[in-house]
């Protein structure tokens, strides 16, 4: 789907959403929390995503595929027991934050960076970080530039509304150097600016750049510089005010990490049903008491692992083909940063 930027597409939905919410203020008396109530009433989770191969992209049949997409399906399993009860919508980095505030999305799985101002000023809550990333710079090879510091005076494309727009300004301020930004909202135009040589370089999360580079007409003419300008911990983002929804997001992600730690995969999960380990019995719902006491279907974690796999499987399925190394995104037991709190 092509995205046509419009003046205030976000605004009008904000307004429409306010009307809807205004109606529900008077009618709802539920304990699940406003977002979860809406999800259940609708029968599907609304997820805002980007379009980067490996992370989120429609395949040849128009079906969304990718690392973040699998987390959307996992959420649908936790809530509905069905990986298909989820709607993915592409939205520009600029539009999606206000859209989440306005309730147009239930969750953003679009590579949103956890930052303190998004937590306090935008009123967001974040699930566990699912991808530890850093901001990179993609340049034309023929410029002969080998490090970011050599870009003094360059024209650099930034995508509006991203942390990258802010980080690059900080980077040059700190270095005491100058650059001219060309700030573009729409992703296609952003890439196009690099290909038409309107800009010398573009900057975004390196996850984004690796994926977008594969889409360039001549990927080999461009190179991602070695530096990472920032920490970009990417996590599911939701609007504040619904604690139960937040916990569902938290533990859905944790389940995929915990499963990898235990070595449970989509292939062998049925064998684990026979496990004598009480923790695994509780996790897979062989012992239903834990799930029952927290109000989830006993088979929720089992179904997630069976349908989308554990963290490592999700990573390998979508990101390995692009040449991604696990890097920081290894389990803590392997020296990485992924760590699930205990399921008890």
């Amino acid at each position: 789907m092509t995205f046509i930027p419009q003046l205030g597409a976000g605004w009008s939905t904000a307004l429409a959403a306010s009307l809807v919410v205004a109606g529900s203020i008077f009618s709802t008396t539920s304990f699940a929390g406003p977002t979860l109530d809406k999800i259940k009433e609708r029968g599907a989770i609304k997820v805002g995503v980007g379009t980067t191969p490996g992370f989120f992209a429609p395949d040849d049949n128009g079906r969304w595929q990718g690392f973040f997409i699998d987390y959307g399906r996992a959420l649908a399993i936790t809530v509905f027991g069905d990986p298909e009860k989820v709607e993915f919508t592409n939205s520009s980095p600029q539009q999606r934050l206000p859209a989440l505030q306005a309730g147009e999305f239930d969750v953003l799985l679009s590579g949103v960076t956890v930052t303190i101002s998004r937590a306090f000023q935008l009123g967001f809550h974040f699930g566990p970080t699912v991808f530890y990333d850093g901001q990179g710079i993609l340049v034309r090879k023929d410029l002969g530039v080998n490090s970011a510091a050599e870009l003094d005076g360059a024209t650099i494309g930034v995508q509006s509304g991203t942390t990258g727009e802010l980080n690059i300004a900080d980077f040059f301020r700190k270095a005491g150097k100058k650059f001219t930004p060309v700030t573009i909202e729409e992703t296609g135009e952003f890439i196009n600016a690099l290909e038409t040589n309107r800009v010398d370089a573009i900057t975004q999360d390196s996850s984004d750049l690796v994926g977008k580079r594969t889409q360039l007409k001549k990927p080999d003419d461009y190179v991602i510089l070695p530096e990472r300008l920032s920490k970009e911990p990417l996590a599911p983002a939701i609007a504040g005010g619904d604690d139960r929804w937040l916990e569902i997001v938290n533990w859905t992600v944790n389940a995929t990490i915990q499963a990898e730690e235990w070595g449970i995969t989509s292939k062998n999960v049925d064998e684990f049903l026979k496990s004598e380990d009480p923790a695994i019995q509780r996790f897979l719902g062989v012992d239903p008491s834990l799930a029952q006491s927290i109000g989830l279907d006993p088979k929720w974690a089992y179904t997630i692992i069976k349908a989308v796999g554990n963290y490592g499987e999700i990573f390998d399925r979508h990101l390995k083909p692009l040449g991604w190394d696990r890097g920081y995104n290894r389990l803590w037991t392997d020296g990485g940063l992924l760590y699930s709190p205990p399921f008890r």
Partner: protein
Amino acid sequence: MSVEAKHQPGLTRPGIVRRTAAWWGAWPVAQMLVVAAVIALVYLLGANASATMQRLGITPGFGFLSHSANFEIGESVIAFKAGDPYVRAILAGLLNTVKVAAFGCVLATILGVALGIAGLSGNVLLATLVRWYVEIVRNTPLLLQLFFWIALAKALPPPRQALSALDALFLSNRGVYVPAIMAENFTPQTFWLLGLIAVSYGLFLFAACRRSRLGMRRGLLATLVLLIATGFALPATGASIGLELPVLSGFNIRGGHNLTPEFAALLAGLTVKFSAAIAEIVRAGIQSVDRGQWEAARVLGLHNGQIMRLVVLPQALRVITPLTTSSYLDLTKDSSLAVAIGYPDLVSIINTTANTTGQSFEALAILIGVYLALNLSVSFLMNVYNRRVALKGVHVR
């Protein structure tokens, strides 16, 4: 005195009762219900907005305007750097909007009037070409046209292979670079001199207009002489005036004045789109003037150019002006499509502001307020002009 005034002939103002009645119209109850409904709706929206903000833990208010905006803006009329407050960023965005809208209105008018007149010139080829232009431009979406212009601007060669003329003008996909006039080192004397010149120029214009002895040509000539004389006189006060030529250095062309591809594309798009609208308005305006006027003028021995200038246009302007006003307003609003091609206009800065501060409602309120103010002032200026052409006709000489 006051007694006499009361008995003056002409319209008397209706009494307060009559006026209130007129205001309420024939169905006061229905009116009242509508007003109440509107107030209720606004209240509901406001209450809901503040409830949502409270749920998200956001403090409403405009305090964020003085916080620092940590992003850069690609081009700005005023100096802006990351770390300056949001008000300044928003002002920079507003000035970018005003800049493109003002140039757009002027250029669209010049092109539109020329096209409108050309279409009626009686030359079949010319008229057909104008017709095609108008139809094509009017019947395709502006957004599409903007994408065309930006693609065209980006198709120019990169800076190192820029097309250049006399080493002073560069045409590249980073924009058009022209020499910039640099005036520096202003001393107090410089300001005194400039002030003096401005005041006497104003007096001169005023006096000339009063006696209406100033022809267009003579006025322009006087202005030109004055500008040149000023240019020569300024260095005497210690100020320096010079030309800064653009030169290729490093990645980019530096120095001189840069018209960015985004600005150029937006300006071209708005100019072309609205020149077609204005051409139609001008054509309609001219055709609304009775044929008899042409014939009468011809009998008086005026030739075609004179008839157009002295007889037809002044009357046509009464039709043209109000319609052109709405074209100007549309042009100003449509400049917000800038976001699509990456020109940092008001909307783009406001979006980023909402995005980084979380104060979406306040940002939206600023956006609405500023566009309203902008359009009301365009309207106001055009109405002043309209009153002049409508009541007194145009001074021609």
